[in-house]
């Protein structure tokens, strides 16, 4: 058993981290396009670590893909890389057209929208899709929907961003790195690109939560690192504020939380499917909590500067607010854990399980 990164894992983490840090220093410029970065990331294979080689990926594991999320989280890389990675995870099945472009990062996909409220017409190959307003990421070339079908499992259906009948109303997302909007499809043309079973669909949902948690841990570590650096540098009463126990102990508290959350998240994504199903909801709950509390501590320990736009602490706090609802809410994961612990009445168990997907 080992929780240390092996040489391959270390190399992935370092390479991804270096590229991200070089191209995207920790600042988010509204309106800037990150397409160039995504194309470079795609070219370097960052989007295909867990994709089988036969499909154009590197044939490694979901944990390796998680390291990309971890490194991107550390650098607070603007979206929609997370949704894009999850979409690739869903579409990594034989015979999907367009997977190459997704892996290359030249076509960006929105998240897998689970159980959209709507219908897909003419389910044979393609048809007109209608959905009620649904929150999605903007700045993508396509959206991906998972329509449940009794006979065929889930119909993975893409709709091009520019499709006639698609209307996206921009929202003001609190997370400056992610643009979101409310999407309404009124008979837009969709294409069923793959059919996957409920089991596989569930694995993708767990992958999404696991990747989000990895990003949260990476970001939390970065927040701690930057706040520690500030506490060593900033002086009051003639000495660095990090020498005062009130400051030191709050930083230690953050370290303690991250240390434990990280091991749970690593274990969740590195485990086999059976164990992963048990661990991911717990890992996501804890990572959500830790990321939020550590960004709160960061703002507090930066003092007045912490409350300014200039200090990057708020970027993490806002990212934490969004990630805690992705791919599902804390309530959903909490119910999943309750169910695991036998704390849910039996008659509700099935419904709760379904909700996670």
């Amino acid at each position, binding site marked *: *058993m*080992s*929780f*240390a*990164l*092996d040489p391959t*894992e270390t190399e992935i983490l370092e390479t991804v981290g270096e590229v991200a840090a070089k191209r995207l220093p920790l600042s988010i410029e509204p309106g800037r396009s990150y397409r160039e970065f995504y194309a470079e990331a795609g070219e370097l294979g960052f989007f295909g670590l867990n994709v089988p080689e036969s499909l154009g990926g590197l044939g490694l594991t979901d*944990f390796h893909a998680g390291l990309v999320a971890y490194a991107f989280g550390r650098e607070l890389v603007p979206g929609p890389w997370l949704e894009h990675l999850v979409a690739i995870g869903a579409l990594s099945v034989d015979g999907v057209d367009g997977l190459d472009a997704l892996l290359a990062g030249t076509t960006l996909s929105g998240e897998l929208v689970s159980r959209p409220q709507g219908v897909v017409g003419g389910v044979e190959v393609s048809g007109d899709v209608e959905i009620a307003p649904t929150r999605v990421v903007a700045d993508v070339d396509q959206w991906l929907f998972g329509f449940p079908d009794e006979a065929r499992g889930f119909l993975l259906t893409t709709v091009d961003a520019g499709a006639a009948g698609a209307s996206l109303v921009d929202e003001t997302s609190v997370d400056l790195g992610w643009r979101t909007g409310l999407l309404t499809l009124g008979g837009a043309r969709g294409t069923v690109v793959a059919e996957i079973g409920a089991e596989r669909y569930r694995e993708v949902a767990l992958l999404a939560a696991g990747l989000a948690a990895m990003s949260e841990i990476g970001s939390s570590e970065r927040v*701690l690192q930057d706040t*520690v650096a500030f*506490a*060593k540098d900033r002086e009051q009463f003639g*000495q*660095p504020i*990090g*020498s005062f*126990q009130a*400051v*030191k*102990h709050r*930083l*230690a*508290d953050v*370290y*303690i*939380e991250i*240390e*434990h*959350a990280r*091991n*749970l998240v*690593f*274990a969740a994504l*590195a*485990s*086999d499917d059976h164990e992963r199903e048990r*661990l991911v909801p*717990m890992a996501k*709950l*804890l990572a959500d909590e830790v990321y939020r509390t550590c960004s709160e501590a960061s703002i507090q320990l930066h003092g007045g500067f912490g409350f300014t736009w200039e200090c990057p602490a708020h970027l993490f706090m806002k990212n934490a607010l969004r990630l805690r609802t992705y791919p599902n809410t804390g309530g959903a994961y*909490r119910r999943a*854990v*309750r169910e695991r*612990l*036998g*704390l849910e*009445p039996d008659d509700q168990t099935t419904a709760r399980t379904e909700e996670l997907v």
Partner: protein
Amino acid sequence: VNVTPTAEDEQFRLEARAWLTSVMPEVWGADEMPRALTEEEEYAMRRRYDQALHRDGWAGLTWKREYGGRGGTLTQYLIFAEESAAAGAPEVLNRGGIGVMGPALADCASEEQKRRYLPKILSSQEIWCQGFSEPNAGSDLAGLTTSAVEVDGGWTIHGQKIWTTLGQISDFCFLLARTSQEERKHRGLTMLIVPMRQPEITTRPIRQLIGDQEFSEVFFDGAFVPRENVVGEIGEGWHVALVTLGHERSTHFINRQIRLRREVAELLELIRANADRLPARLVDEIVDIAVRTEALGWTVKSHIARLGSGGAPGAPDSASKVFWSDVWQALTVLALEVEAELGFSVDIPNHAEPDWTLRYLGSRAATIYAGTSEIQKNIIGDRGLGLPR
């Protein structure tokens, strides 16, 4: 990162489980978990357990064979701790000797000392206590004043130690004493092995708030220590103390961290059985505690992996000491709330099994002993995060 257990480890787990199951009746002296024992009965029971472990080759899992150990891996140690908790095995009586001071001796003592002392620690023929804290040197351990003065053939000890676990029944004390006055107080300390059975040593049990007397004050009024009982170099006692504390906060503590899982399971059972009578808030709290216990479990595994591949104890171990004590305290608070909602009495003993009132009270010590939470956070801040002192 690799979190999948090997086939050998799973095999070891089955063997450990079978042995523990077979030996428990002998240890408890009954078929079931025990009624409340008197202190003497408890010591006798734990001594039986130590002897059974030693007799059947399960003592000192990671100790070298030449000193009576099993020569196993840290992963096996962890597995055995997990299975012990699951089986409801007691703590070993000589827990400081086996878990903390023995390993420190293995690191720092001479070959002769190791051969002399280690096997008898392991068999609990000789019980050891740790003479570190003093009335005026608690968190500020290096400020201790107990002195060892060189005399013909050895040392004479004067001073007082406190919080000495099992001091009253110990055969040897692992004593940190001042052997010279230096400007820097960490210097001038020496670690000595003090035979406890001599008239110049008086032990006085301290009654804890939970009523038992596991601790002692120990008074040294000219006690004698032979020259050959110095561990490590004269004047290098601080180093030996840090090694000792490192074992205490890392591998030794894992046993308690593992036991937490069992206690969480016990409370879960109570809550599950009464979910419809409890406020939703309490049910939610056990979810948080279960999540944190799971995180602790994996983090303990990460410590074992790190220590097993040659890593030294440090900030991550301190982190888990704090995390564990916080979760444990929160668990006992929750348990008392649950019991109150269900109309349980808070009398001691409250005749409920397990006794959560006693656990609540007992858990207050967890954030104090083995380095207070405040000291652990200093360690994390100074060594883990590199913050200025």
